[in-house]
């Protein structure tokens, strides 16, 4: 039986983790908090149903990812420059290594970032990543391969630039 206490416990246990995961996708902790909170607000009023799921966290994560994608589409023009080259919008002081990863991630398309984060940060399998995003496993594999290659290349370049500097 679903209770308000269940939802409170679920929220307390998963909120920080989901913000961390969504931050890795969107690169902006304020936006990550917004989309995760919005997803939890939707979960709160559907809790009777969602609590019966084996993995309610996956529901919240998927809705948050949907929201992030929608936000990006809505403000694509404004974000385009930021996504590729601009300064970090709402990122706390990061170490040089994390800054390099942030810059490299921001150069990748969102669809590649989603797959990379689900696979490496959330640590889902290829199949689980495919189910989470509602795409075929083959698409996950190809996005993973391209994202991994691009990220590794960019991080390699960042390292070279630092070395030259």
């Amino acid at each position, binding site marked *: 039986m679903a209770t308000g206490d269940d939802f409170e416990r679920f929220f307390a246990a998963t909120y920080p983790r989901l*913000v961390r995961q969504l*931050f*890795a996708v969107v690169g902006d902790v304020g936006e990550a908090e917004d989309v995760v909170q919005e997803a939890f607000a939707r979960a*709160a009023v559907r809790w009777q149903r969602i609590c019966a799921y084996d993995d309610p966290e996956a529901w919240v994560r998927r809705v948050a990812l949907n929201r992030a994608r*929608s936000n990006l589409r809505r403000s694509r023009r404004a974000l385009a420059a930021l996504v590729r080259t601009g300064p970090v919008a709402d990122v706390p002081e*990061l170490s040089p*290594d994390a800054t390099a990863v942030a810059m490299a*991630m921001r150069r990748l398309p969102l669809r590649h970032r989603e797959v990379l984060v689900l696979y490496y940060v959330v640590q889902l399998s290829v199949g689980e990543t495919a189910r989470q995003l509602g795409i075929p496993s083959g698409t996950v594999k190809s996005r993973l391969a391209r994202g991994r290659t691009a990220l590794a290349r960019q991080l390699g370049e960042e390292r070279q630039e630092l070395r030259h500097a």
Partner: protein
Amino acid sequence: MRDDQLRARLLAYADEGGQPRRPAPSPAELRRRGYRALAAATTAAVLLVGLAGGGATVLAGRVGGHRDSGLVGQPHPATLPSQPPASPTSTPGTVAPGTAPSSSAPAPPGRLTPGSAVTPTGMGPVEFGMTLKQAERAGGVRLVGLGDTFGDCSYVVPAGWKVHVGELVVDPVAFMVSSGRIARVDVQAGRTPTSAGVRIGSTEPQVRRAYPGRVTVGRNLYGTRLLTVVPADPAEAGYRIVFASDGQKVMYFHAGRLPEVNAQEGCA
């Protein structure tokens, strides 16, 4: 760069930068936001899915009735999630005088009622693919938005259809509108049947007997057991009826065209 190195760097990046910076909202605040989103553009509609109330009856008239009427006529939102789900055997509520027809009453021909049968291609006179106006005209009902819009996807409910499930007032039926057209119907409470006689509270064997050889069993991403009916008619190949089961009985169901019928989060 090796795979484990990449993983380590991404994890460190997420840990370092992804610490929430604002205080987390309270669960009560989240519920308020959720209900505000649902009530933003509508009447006192609350889409409480999964409240399978086989004994629920239709409440008189409309609750609220104005676009900005908020949550009039409902329990305080903060109390709702703590309410137990109604059992299919729960005692029916009372039907007030002058009400909409009982959800189990036979549907008058040509008019959409809670007793109209759900088929793979529609509900009563409302067919998937109709525009909102066509559906309202065909069904003789007004369809009001739930305000739960995501991109070009939203939900509408027939005005005045409400059921009591325990202390809750619930929309028994909601239609998904995708790109301006009715794409699917979600039956989440009440006695609305399919054309084969399955309804909330029906057992899994009853579903199989109603749709012999056409039921495939699976689970959605979140672990809920789903019994999916593939229509026999090739002309209906692009449609499905999906029953969500607790392992024994139907908790709720939806029907619609592909791909919307498989959207596990509705419009969210």
